[in-house]
């Protein structure tokens, strides 16, 4: 691990200002992803800004009947929160499907949104990776791609976003609240939060330099039946090959987002409008334009079947 300096700012605005002063700074919250990457020198921050002491760890009602989740709320606490279990089950289920109990006790809401890809070439510092070293090339294209994206990738990168929580946040239309280095605040809808890789896969979100997530806000509850179905290589503690987050209403309408298939949670309004017509119609529309490799083309079938299983369950 490379050496770094360290500070504990007193306020969120101070944290953002500090990050803007040092271009190679990183915020550290749970650290479960960042420290892992620092050990293998994929991440080499010169300065760590510890945001654990900031007063950002509360879950409280939001003005419009929604729920404001502090950036530092731990994944385990969020999944166990009474309101989340009752009104946003898709989120609780997604959180519980991710990582291990030890990691969920540390990992935070904001950190989960910002976790880096699990593409094996991103982790292998001996191989080119445009996300790790911009312009160095993509070893995944033409390499081992079973876990990687089938849609949304580019000639520069076909990595997937690894989060389960983010897929549920996308289906719930969560909003990300932030503070910028000049102390101004803004709200970014989750639909506009992530960037597709294009030719700059190292830039993964629309956050400005130094901008700090302070909370994630859920709109008022949607009702309906909530599902998070995750298909993976082990029964527990593995990243998704394909996951389906869905909220299905009694009339068969609803919302659906896919995880494990793209560089960001994958959702499309015109595709989910076809939910009453069955899974195949939805996934055909949602994954139209997919460019799978021979190694990961199975994800297209898997997505259709996983959604089909969800819709069958929704009818019972």
């Amino acid at each position, binding site marked *: 691990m490379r050496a770094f300096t360290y500070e504990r700012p007193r306020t969120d605005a101070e944290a953002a200002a*500090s990050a803007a002063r040092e271009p190679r700074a990183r915020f550290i919250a749970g650290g479960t992803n960042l420290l892992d990457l620092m050990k293998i020198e994929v991440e080499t921050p010169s300065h760590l800004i510890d945001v654990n002491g900031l007063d950002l760890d509360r879950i409280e009602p939001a003005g419009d009947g929604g729920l404001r989740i502090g950036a530092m709320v731990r994944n385990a606490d969020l999944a166990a929160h009474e309101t989340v279990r009752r009104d946003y*089950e898709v989120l*609780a289920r997604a959180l519980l499907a991710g990582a291990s109990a030890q990691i969920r*006790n540390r990992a935070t809401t904001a950190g989960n949104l910002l976790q880096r890809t699990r593409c094996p070439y991103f982790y292998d510092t001996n191989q080119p990776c445009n996300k790790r070293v911009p312009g160095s090339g993509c070893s995944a294209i033409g390499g081992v791609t079973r876990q990687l994206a089938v849609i949304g990738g580019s000639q520069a990168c076909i990595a997937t976003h690894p989060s389960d929580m983010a897929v549920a946040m996308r289906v719930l239309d969560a909003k990300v609240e932030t503070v910028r280095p000049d102390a101004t605040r803004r709200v970014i809808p989750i639909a506009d939060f992530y960037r597709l890789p294009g030719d700059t896969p190292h830039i993964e979100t629309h956050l400005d330099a130094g901008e700090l997530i302070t909370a994630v806000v859920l709109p008022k509850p949607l009702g309906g039946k909530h599902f998070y179905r995750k298909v993976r290589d082990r029964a527990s*503690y593995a990243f998704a090959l394909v996951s389906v987050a869905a909220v299905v209403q009694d009339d068969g309408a609803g919302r659906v987002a896919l995880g494990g298939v793209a560089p960001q949670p994958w959702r499309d309004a015109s595709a989910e409008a076809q939910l009453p017509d069955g899974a195949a119609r939805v996934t055909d529309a949602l994954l139209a334009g997919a460019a799978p490799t021979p190694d990961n083309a199975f994800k297209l079938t898997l997505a259709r079947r996983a959604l089909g299983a969800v819709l069958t369950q929704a009818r019972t």
Partner: protein
Amino acid sequence: MENPTDINISRRNLLKAGAASATAFGTPAMSAAQNTAPPQSLKATVTLTVNGNTHELALDLRTSLLDALREHLHMTGTKKGCDHGQCGACTVLLDGKRINSCLTLAVMHDGQQITTIEGLGTPGALHPLQAAFVKHDGYQCGYCTPGQICSAVGMLDEAARGMPSHVTGSLNERPLLSPEEIRERMSGNICRCGAYANILDAIEDVAEGKA
């Protein structure tokens, strides 16, 4: 809240940090123009409370909580397996909650309560889970065992607080610790000898109050 000025800075470390800034790390140099920035150092003095005892340690900032326990406090009960949060051998309790001590920095835990396997029981007075692991032969080589036991302590507390898991049927009902629940909740602890069946029996005993 912890005060950032609690981080003790020696002049020597300050100079070292300055040299590093100028070369490899591109950190803002210490200067009058940077006087709003915190002092730059690569070391810190950290106060860790482990099993009720308070220790003051001067640590390289990079020191994981795991390495602070093993290499600086010489408490080697907590094991280093993968050092990447995948195996669970390093599991300790932080303010009563189980975490991977390899995936956190010691400096982040100034003033918090850490419980390791050494703090759960003694050879003459075993913790109920330690006794149950002995009774059920819940290990073979034993390397994962401290992590398994610390994890199980945290897991039983989570279940007692009604926290759900991935396999919990209804999220609005109190989960019961079935074997399926225990397996899922313990999935962050790997046993390469494959003693899982006996580990499960040991934990079930304590969960059911038999131990």
